[in-house]
């Protein structure tokens, strides 16, 4: 899945948004008896560094992927340092700003292997919601979050029927992979509530 590649947002917002993904190569990494144990160990490392969101633990035992979301680069450096030291041999992908990821690689002494670049959106763009709403909905890699949901919660916040934090938590629910960043969602919702699209 192209999962977290097409997240929208300005540079400053994206500096507070990192997704770390660990994945088995099918037929290669998953053929050893301790494969699952290694993937779960990565889940534990991610969890120990207080992610803002993480794939539910119940999925760690069945999924070939584990994902977690972080809000600051220094924590991501610590995670990567630990993953490098433990040398588990499982592929690790970080989504974020190219300049920030290069910074992480330099500080942790890693050689980036392959990149996936986004050229953005093409075609009938008049079918899309506003840019700010897309900043929220594109935080789910499988696009399970409806633009109507965002509008619905903006109205509830304006009517003081729900807090911004609770609305962000509700919006995160359809994202089963745990890559939705509720902290960023709070910031974006605050902007949208003020009427800036």
């Amino acid at each position, binding site marked *: *899945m*192209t999962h*977290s*590649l*097409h*997240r929208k*947002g300005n*540079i400053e917002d*994206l500096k507070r948004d990192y997704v770390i993904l660990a*994945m*088995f*190569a*099918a037929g*290669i*990494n998953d053929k050893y008896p301790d494969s699952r144990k290694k993937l779960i160990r990565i889940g534990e490392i991610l969890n120990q560094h207080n992610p803002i969101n993480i794939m539910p633990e119940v999925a760690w035992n069945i*999924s*070939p*992927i584990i994902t977690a979301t972080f809000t600051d680069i220094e924590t991501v450096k610590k995670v990567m340092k630990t993953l*490098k030291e433990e*040398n588990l*041999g*499982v*592929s*690790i*992908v*970080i*989504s974020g700003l*190219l*300049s920030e*990821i290069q910074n992480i*690689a330099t500080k942790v002494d*890693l050689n*980036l*292997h*392959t*990149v*996936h*670049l*986004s*050229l*953005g*959106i*093409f*075609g*009938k*763009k008049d*079918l*899309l919601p506003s840019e700010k709403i*897309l900043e929220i*909905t594109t935080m789910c890699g*499988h*696009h*399970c979050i*409806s633009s*109507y*949901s965002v509008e*619905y919660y903006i109205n509830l916040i304006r009517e003081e029927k729900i807090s911004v934090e609770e609305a962000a938590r509700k919006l995160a*629910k*359809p994202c*089963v992979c745990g890559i939705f960043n509720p902290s960023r969602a709070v910031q974006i919702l605050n902007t949208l509530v003020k009427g800036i699209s």
Partner: protein
Amino acid sequence: MEIKADLCIGCGQCVIVCPVHAIKLKDNKAEINQDQCVECAVCYRDAECPVKAIRSKRLKWPRIIRSPFSNVITTHKVTGIPGRGTEEMKTNDVTNRYSLGEIGITIEIGRPGVGTYLRNIELFTTKLSKIGVEYEKESPVTAIIIDDKGHIKEYIKNEKVLSAIIEFKVPNSKITDVLNVIREVEKKIDTVFSVGIITRIMENGDIPIINLLSEEGFKVRKNIKANMGLGRA
């Protein structure tokens, strides 16, 4: 998906959560437009229907093909992983699926959030096949291409899905041809699509394709996915 009209109380929770806006309220009852529904099951999982009126019905062929392209929980039998994509560059440090001198391309039709009929795949694949691209063998889209001209199975063309990802690679020398296809299809397609470019990093850390894409008039976004090189066979 279906909503039991005799149970529905018209609260509208399912209308709100549907990513493709396929559910409407009519006479205070929620109704699913079955043509527009992509079978993502978000309504079933997340609407919190107070009367449990939303049902996941047993899908028949060809409608059942909507599910792996839309429902994140469905594991496609070709890829073996949940969701509609593949490992692509995520495990490239182990698989070397994309070598130096090759460019990987992902064209996700219907993303973000608009959806697509599967017939739109052919708009790309009939042109890409002429170029001589190498389709990703593990991709659910490749599994429905039936010939070397890039046609897909006729009876699935009118099935609507949340998104479909065409994954393929070309030698560096053919990237301009691919970009021309993207320009051409953009003018005629009835939905949106998102494009990704996969490339190996040079030993000195350079990513030369960024300049080439810029010269061709394509803007590379600042946020990326990076394989950090920690995997091994």
